Structure formats: structure tokens, C-alpha cells
């Protein structure tokens, strides 16, 4: 239950991070998107997503798609404490999973910030949270075919973060870069985040939330396992931050706080798949590598002329993949077959996400348009779509 609260507060973390790393003229818009995701995500997940994700696959079924009906009603016995392995009830489970589901959409939100049309984004995220995410989820956590293959993803490096990350990647490709992100020669320019303290607070809040994310995914109140999980989670985060900070200091001769922050998140995403399988040393290794991946990943995205304001692709997609594969490399499940299973899982889920989000996004683009007009973008979405200022009493610069 507490873990649910912690996962809930991650949404504050994401909002802060996203606001902080973008320009003030789009702040209201970002908050609106995030509020939409939390509220409607929960409602949609309640309406159908949960039953799509945990349909109760029959023995012997292929476990690809099944839907257990609309709405939520506790199964018989679900109200008792001993539901599933014990330690939590059916209701807790729903809420916890609902918060997870919303996370996938939030990841996309960060990547597409400052230029996506609000209505298109809302439509997209409804479908993605209500349909794509639970289908993928059912393959593993719902007991579907990936689960039967032995694919392991403890708390969602792939099932949550990559699922969000793939959609983010496709979305920024479809959308194109923000006005001013690349100059005529295609050289990337810096569009500065406007409130770094909030972004930093977002990172710490996310770290806090991850205690719930990973700790809660133990799905039982086994204190030994839970506490090990918290230790690995924290150490990976610390190692990710430290290595990203050091590596970027070497690379750019500059103490770059934003890399530090992204490194911490990268470490957290990286450990998520195997948080309960790793020793502290493994966790530090996984985190450190994630930190380096982040620094290179952010640069790579720029090189590809993609525009990802908050670094969502590097953090959630690339580190998500890394984390999932790491289960086959480090820790108590390490092994060549496990690695291949992990790779297969990453590939299948990736393909599915790319295809489904691609179709969805192109359809939206064709049907209703996906990007605001150039003029609205320059003016800022807050004024253009909401007629409201985020900081009415402050004198502001405009970029």
C-alpha cells in the first residue's frame, strides 16, 4: 500500500523533471498532459486495461491476447489478505498496476513536450495505456507466453520503461524537432530547461518513488527480499549518477548537473529488471554502465537529429534494454540462455511497440494533425492552448 503511494508520487517527480527541463512557455501544457495521464490513465486502466493485462490465461492457451471484461470487480477471495502469494490484496494490486500503466504514457509525454498537439497526445495516450501497454504486460506479468519462456523483468525495465521509450522514440521521429533545436547546418543547439531546481527535485522524488516501484514489485512483504531490492536500487542509482557525472565531466570538461540527474535515472531504470537478483556489487556495475550509456545515448539522439527534451529515450529505452539484458549477464540468473531469452523479449516487445505506436501515431497525424503550428510553438503552448501563464508575476525571457 505504501508502495502504491510511492509510485503515485513518481508522477510528481516526472512532472517536475519534465517542467524543469523545458521552457517556461509550455509549463501549463506539460502539467495538463500529466494530470490527464494520471486521471484518465487510471480510469481507462480501470475500465479495461487491468483485465486485459491480467486476463488469467488458461493453461495451454498461447497467451497472446485475452480480455477478461470491462470494469473491475474483485475476484472471489480477492478481498482477503492472502490473495495471490499473500501480502497484498486485489485492490492494492489494481491501484499499483494502474499507477505503473500511467508511467508508460508519462515517458512519452516528456519526449514529445513543447510541440505536440494536446488533443492528439490525449488520444494517443488513452489508446497506449488502455490497449498497447496491457497487452504487452499480459505477455509477462499476466502469465502470457514470455513468462512461460522464462523471460525475466522484475519491475518493468522492458514492460514499463521500454514500452514507453519505444513510443517516445517513434513519436519524436514522427513529430520532428522543436523549432530552433537544430540550426541550418543541423548542429544541435541547447534549448535550456527553465527550472533546474524543480527538475532536480523531480529526480529525487523519482528515486523515492522507485523504492515503491521496485520495493513494491516484490509483491509480498518479505522483508529480506524487499530490503535487498532497496539496496540494489539505491546503489545502482548512485552509481549511475556518479558515473554519468564523471564521464560527462571528462568528456565536456564541465560539471554537468543535467547529466548527473539523467545518470541517476538511467541507473534506476537499469536495475529495475533485476533488482531482486543482483548483489550490491552487481548493482553498482549495472548502474555505472547505465550512467555511461546515458551520456552517450543523449549525444546519439542529438546526432540522429532527434529532439528529446528530457532525455526520455536515452533513460527509459536504452537503459531499459540494458537493464533487461543485464539480467542475463549479472546476478543470480546470469547465463547464456537467459541472455537470449531476455534478448528475444526485448526484441518482440520492441517490435510490437514500434509497430503499434507507429501505426497509431501516423493515423493520428493523418486524421487530426499531431503538431501545433509553428507560430503557436514559438508563442508557447500555454498561451496558445490554455490562455494561461505558469508564472504570471515573474518577468520572463523568451527563447
Amino acid at each position, binding site marked *: 500500500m505504501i508502495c502504491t503511494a510511492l509510485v503515485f508520487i513518481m508522477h510528481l517527480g516526472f512532472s517536475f523533471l519534465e517542467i524543469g527541463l523545458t521552457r517556461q512557455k509550455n509549463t501549463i501544457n506539460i502539467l495538463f498532459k500529466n494530470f490527464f495521464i494520471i486521471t484518465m490513465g487510471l480510469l481507462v486502466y480501470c475500465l479495461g486495461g487491468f483485465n486485459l493485462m491480467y486476463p488469467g490465461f488458461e493453461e495451454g492457451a498461447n497467451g497472446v491476447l485475452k480480455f477478461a471484461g470491462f470494469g473491475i470487480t474483485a475476484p472471489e477471495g480477492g478481498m482477503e489478505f492472502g490473495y495471490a502469494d499473500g501480502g497484498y490484496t486485489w485492490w492494492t494490486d489494481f491501484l499499483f498496476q494502474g499507477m505503473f500503466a500511467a508511467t508508460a504514457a508519462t515517458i512519452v509525454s516528456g519526449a514529445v513536450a513543447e510541440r505536440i498537439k494536446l488533443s492528439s497526445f490525449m488520444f494517443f495516450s488513452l489508446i497506449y495505456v488502455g490497449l498497447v501497454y496491457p497487452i504487452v504486460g499480459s505477455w509477462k506479468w499476466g502469465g502470457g507466453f514470455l513468462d512461460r519462456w522464462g523471460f525475466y523483468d522484475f519491475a518493468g525495465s522492458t514492460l514499463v520503461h521500454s514500452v514507453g521509450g519505444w513510443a517516445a522514440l517513434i513519436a519524436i521521429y514522427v513529430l520532428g524537432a522543436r523549432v*530552433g533545436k537544430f540550426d541550418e547546418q543541423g548542429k544541435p543547439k541547447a534549448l535550456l530547461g527553465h527550472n533546474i531546481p524543480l527538475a532536480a527535485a523531480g529526480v529525487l522524488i523519482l528515486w523515492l518513488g522507485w523504492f515503491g516501484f521496485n520495493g513494491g514489485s516484490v509483491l509480498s512483504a518479505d522483508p529480506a527480499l524487499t530490503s535487498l531490492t532497496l539496496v540494489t536500487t539505491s546503489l545502482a542509482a548512485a552509481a549511475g549518477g556518479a558515473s554519468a557525472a564523471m564521464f560527462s565531466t571528462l568528456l565536456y570538461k564541465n560539471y554537468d548537473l543535467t547529466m548527473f540527474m539523467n545518470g541517476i535515472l538511467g541507473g534506476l531504470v537499469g536495475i529495475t529488471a533485476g533488482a531482486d537478483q543482483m548483489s550490491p556489487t552487481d548493482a553498482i556495475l549495472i548502474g555505472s554502465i547505465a550512467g555511461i550509456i546515458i551520456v552517450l545515448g543523449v549525444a546519439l539522439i542529438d546526432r540522429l537529429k532527434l529532439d528529446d527534451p528530457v532525455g526520455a529515450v536515452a533513460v527509459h529505452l536504452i537503459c531499459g534494454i540494458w537493464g533487461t539484458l543485464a539480467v542475463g549477464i549479472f546476478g543470480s540468473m546470469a547465463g547464456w540462455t537467459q541472455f537470449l531469452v531476455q534478448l528475444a523479449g526485448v526484441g518482440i516487445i520492441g517490435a510490437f511497440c514500434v509497430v503499434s505506436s507507429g501505426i497509431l501515431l501516423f493515423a493520428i497525424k493523418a486524421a487530426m494533425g499531431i503538431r501545433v503550428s509553428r*507560430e503557436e510553438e514559438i508563442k508557447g503552448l500555454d498561451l496558445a492552448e*490554455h*490562455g*494561461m501563464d505558469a508564472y504570471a508575476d515573474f518577468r520572463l525571457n*523568451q527563447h
Partner: protein
Amino acid sequence: MKKVEAIIRKSKFDEVKAALHQVEVNFFSYWDVTGVGNEQQGHVYRGISYSTSEIQRRFLSIVVSDEFLDRTVKAILSSAATDRVGDGKIFISNIEEAYRIRTGDKGSKSLN
């Protein structure tokens, strides 16, 4: 020497800056002001919709030598216009003397 003060739309700033660089006006200062004029902007806040004629503008202050005046004005006029109400104004006034603080130079050679 003349002072050119231009009040423009914030969203046009990048274009105006490029146009000024084009005519080799590379030195100026700017800040943001609130403009009261003809243009109106609609807002909604907690159920109250209102429109205000107080709109954020960018104020450019450019001191140029007399022979640069014309091209500076032209560069701004052509790059800042959108033909919709609210494009702003340019005001020209006289500057009697100018100093470059670094060197103490006087006159128009201090300008760039």
C-alpha cells in the same frame, strides 16, 4: 549618432536579430517590456475569461552612427512585421556622445 528603439513581438526577435546581423549591426541591448496598445489577448483563469491589452514585448535599444540609421530601420521594419495589429514601433532619437568603457574611446568609433 542615433538611438533606435524598437518595440517588437517577442516571437519575432530571432528574425529581427538575424536581419540586424545581416546589415552588420552586431551591437545592441534588449529587455522585455509590457506594451499597452491596440492588440488584445484572450485568457481564461479559473472560469473567468478576460482579454488584456497588456502584452509582453521586446524592447531593443540600438545606438548606431548616422550612416547606419537607415539600414537598421529598414532591417527591423522588414523582419518584424506580421501585418497584424501589435507589430510594434520604432523610435529614433539623438545621442550626443558615446563612450566605450573598456577603452574610454568616444564618438562613433566606440559603437562597435
